[in-house]
C-alpha cells in the first residue's frame, strides 16, 4: 500500500514543481511576449511584462521579408527524413547488440559514441568537399544524410538501452514457435519497444530540428531550414529583438506543439525501465 503523503507536503511539492516548470519555460514565454512588442518596448527598462500595446506587426514583417513555409517544409523533410532513415539503420543494429552481444559489443557502442566527441567544425572542410564533389551542397538529401550520421550514435544507444529491458526469453519463445527473424522483430520486439522507439523518434526529430551547425553550413538558398530563417534576423548591429523573437517563435512553434502532444509518450519512453 502506498504511504499516505500529508496534503501540505503534496501542496508544497506541487508548487515547487510548477515553479521549476515556470522557470524553465520562462525564456520561451519571454520570447513569445517580446514578439508582440514594438522594437521600442522590447528594450524598455524596466521590462514590460503584460501591459503593453500588443502588436502583430513583427509577424507581418517577418512573413513579408522571408518565405517561412519554404524553410518550414525543409525543416520537416530534413528532421523527419533523417530520423526515419536513422531508425531504419539503428533498429537492426541495436537488436543485434542487445540480443546477440559479443565480446566487442561494448567497445563498438563506445566507439560509436566517440564520433560525437569531435567538435563538428573539425570535419567541416572534408564534409564540405565531399558534398561539393557529389553535388549534395544545398540539397535536402545531403542534409538528411549528414543529420542521420550525426544522430545515429544517439539513436542506437537509446534503442539499445530500451531493447536490453526486454527479456530475451520472450524472443526465444517466439523463435521456438517458429517465428522467423523478421517476424520476431516486427511482431514481437517492436510492439514491446514502441514507447522506446517513439521517444527515440521524437527526441531525434527535436535534435534534428534544432541542429544549427550543419544546416547553416551546408545550405544556401534551396535547402535552408528554419535555423537559417532565424539566422537572418539576429543582428550584432541594431536592436531588432522583437522581429528576432517573432522569427524564433515561428521556428519553435511546430516542434513545441509536437512536444506538447507527445509529452506522455516522451516521458514514458524516457523513464522506460527506470522503475523496476
Amino acid at each position, binding site marked *: 500500500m502506498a504511504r499516505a503523503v500529508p496534503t501540505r507536503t503534496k501542496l508544497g511539492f506541487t508548487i515547487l514543481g510548477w515553479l521549476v516548470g515556470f522557470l524553465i519555460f520562462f525564456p520561451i514565454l519571454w520570447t513569445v511576449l517580446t514578439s508582440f512588442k514594438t522594437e521600442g518596448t522590447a528594450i524598455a527598462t524596466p521590462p514590460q511584462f503584460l501591459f503593453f500595446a500588443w502588436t502583430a506587426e513583427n509577424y507581418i514583417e517577418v512573413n513579408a521579408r*522571408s518565405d517561412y513555409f519554404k524553410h518550414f517544409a525543409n525543416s520537416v523533410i530534413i528532421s523527419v527524413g533523417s530520423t526515419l532513415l536513422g531508425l531504419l539503420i539503428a533498429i537492426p543494429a541495436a537488436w543485434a547488440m542487445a540480443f546477440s552481444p559479443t565480446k566487442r559489443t561494448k567497445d563498438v557502442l563506445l566507439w560509436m559514441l566517440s564520433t560525437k566527441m569531435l567538435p563538428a567544425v573539425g570535419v567541416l*572542410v572534408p564534409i564540405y568537399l565531399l558534398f561539393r564533389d557529389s553535388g549534395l551542397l544545398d540539397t535536402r538529401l545531403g542534409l538528411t544524410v549528414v543529420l542521420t550520421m550525426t544522430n545515429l550514435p544517439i539513436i542506437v544507444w537509446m534503442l539499445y538501452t530500451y531493447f536490453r529491458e526486454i527479456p530475451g526469453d520472450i524472443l526465444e519463445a517466439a523463435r521456438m514457435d517458429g517465428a522467423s527473424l523478421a517476424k520476431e522483430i516486427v511482431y514481437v520486439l517492436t510492439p514491446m519497444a514502441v514507447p522506446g522507439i517513439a521517444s527515440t523518434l521524437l527526441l531525434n526529430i527535436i535534435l534534428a530540428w534544432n541542429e544549427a551547425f550543419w544546416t547553416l553550413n551546408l545550405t544556401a538558398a534551396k535547402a535552408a531550414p528554419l535555423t*537559417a530563417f532565424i539566422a537572418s534576423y539576429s543582428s550584432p548591429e541594431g536592436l531588432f529583438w522583437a522581429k528576432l523573437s517573432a522569427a524564433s517563435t515561428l521556428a519553435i512553434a511546430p516542434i513545441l506543439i509536437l512536444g506538447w502532444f507527445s509529452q506522455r509518450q516522451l516521458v514514458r519512453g524516457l523513464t522506460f525501465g527506470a522503475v523496476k
Partner: protein
Amino acid sequence: MKVKRLALAACSALAIAAHAQAETLTIATVNNGDMIRMQKLSDAFTEQNPDIDLEWVTLEENVLRQRVTTDIATKGGQYDIMTIGTYEVPIWAKQEWLVPLDFGADYDVDDLLPAIRAGLSQDGTLYAAPFYGESSFVMYRKDLFEDAGLEMPEAPTWDFIAEAARKITDKENEIYGICLRGKAGWGENMAFLTAMANSFGARWFDMEWKPQFDQPEWKEALQFYVDLMNDAGPPGASSNGFNENLALFQTGKCGMWIDATVAASFVTNPEESQVADKVGFALAPDKGLGKRGNWLWAWSLAIPAGSQKIDAAKKFIAWATGKDYAALVADKEGWANVPPGTRTSLYENPAYQEAAPFAELTLKSIQAADPTHPTVEEVPYVGVQFVAIPEFQGIGTAVGQQFSAALAGQSTVDQALSNAQTLAEREMMKAGYTK
C-alpha cells in the same frame, strides 16, 4: 507535314529551354537594413534583365562570414555574389579568390570615395564594389552638455572627451558620461580600441611584424580607456557591445557614445529612441598626432573566382552599387534611406544633405580614415580597426579578452598588455611572420 510539325515542336522546346535557362544568381548577403531594402527593390533589376533571376541568402554577419569563407576557401561555388567587408577583401584578393571588377564608363568608378576604394583594392585593382560604407564618430546628448555648461567642438580631443564624460556622470541618476565597447572580440572591443590606439600613436605591428603591446603608446591608450570607463562608464561595461550601448544610449543613460556612424539613424529615430531630438554628433577624438580614433568599414559585393556567371554578376553589382540605385531608393523611400558612405556624388547632392543631418560628419569621418596608412608610424598591414591578415580574427579576439579583463578589473593594464604581447608574439611566430 510531319517534318514541319516536328521542327516546330523542336523550336518551341528550344525556346522553352532557353527561357528556363535564365541565369539564376545566388547572392549571399548580410541582414542589415540597407541590404534588406536592396533585396526589396531588386525587382527593378529583374524587370530590366528578364534573363537573370535572383536568389537571396540573408544571414547574420558572423554566420555569413563563416559561411562564405568556407565556400570560397573550398571553391564550393554556392554563391555567385558574396557580401564581404573591408577585412576580407585584401586577404581574398591576395589569394586570388576574387574576380577583378571593371565596369563601363557609366559606373563612374572615380566617384567612389578614395578611402573606401583604397580599402577594396589590391595593387590598384578593385576587387569588390562598396554597397555602403561607415566610419565611427561621437554621438552626444546636447541637453546634458548644455546643463553641464559644455560645448562639443566639431573635432574634439581625447582630453576634452574625458573631462566632459567625468563632468556629466551622475551615477545616482544612472547617467554615465561615456559608453564604449568592452565586450571581447576582434569586431567588438578591438575594433574600437585599435582605432583609438591609432590616434594615440600605437600600432599592432612594426615593419618586421613584431607586436607592439610592450610600447608606451599602447600603455597610455589602454590606461586612458580603463580609467575613463571606471570613472564615467556604465557598470558591467566589459560585456557591452554595439547593441548593449545602443540600448543604453536610446534609454538616456549615456552622455556620449563613440561607435559606428550607422548608429546615427537609430538614435535619432523617435520610434525607437527616447532621446531622438537631443543627439549631436562630432568627429572621433584625436591626440594631436594627426590620426583620429575612427574606423572604416564597407559592406561590399564581390564575385568569387571560378564563378560561371561573371557577366550577369557584374551586371547586378553595377546596378546595386551604381548611381541609379541611389536615385531609385530616393524615389521609393526618400533620400535619408540611400546607402551612405560610398560615392562623392551623394554627398554633393543638396537633397541628400538636407535629408540626412549627419551626412557631412559621416563623410568627414570616412575621409579621416586611411586604411593603407592607418597609424602615425608606418605599418606593414592594411586596415584601420583590424589588421588584414587571416590570423587576425584569432589574435584580435584573444587580445580583446585580455583588454576586457582589464576593464572588468580582473587584471591590471600592465598584466593585460604583457599577456597580449606574449600571445601575439607566439601566434605571429607560429604563423611564420617572425622568427
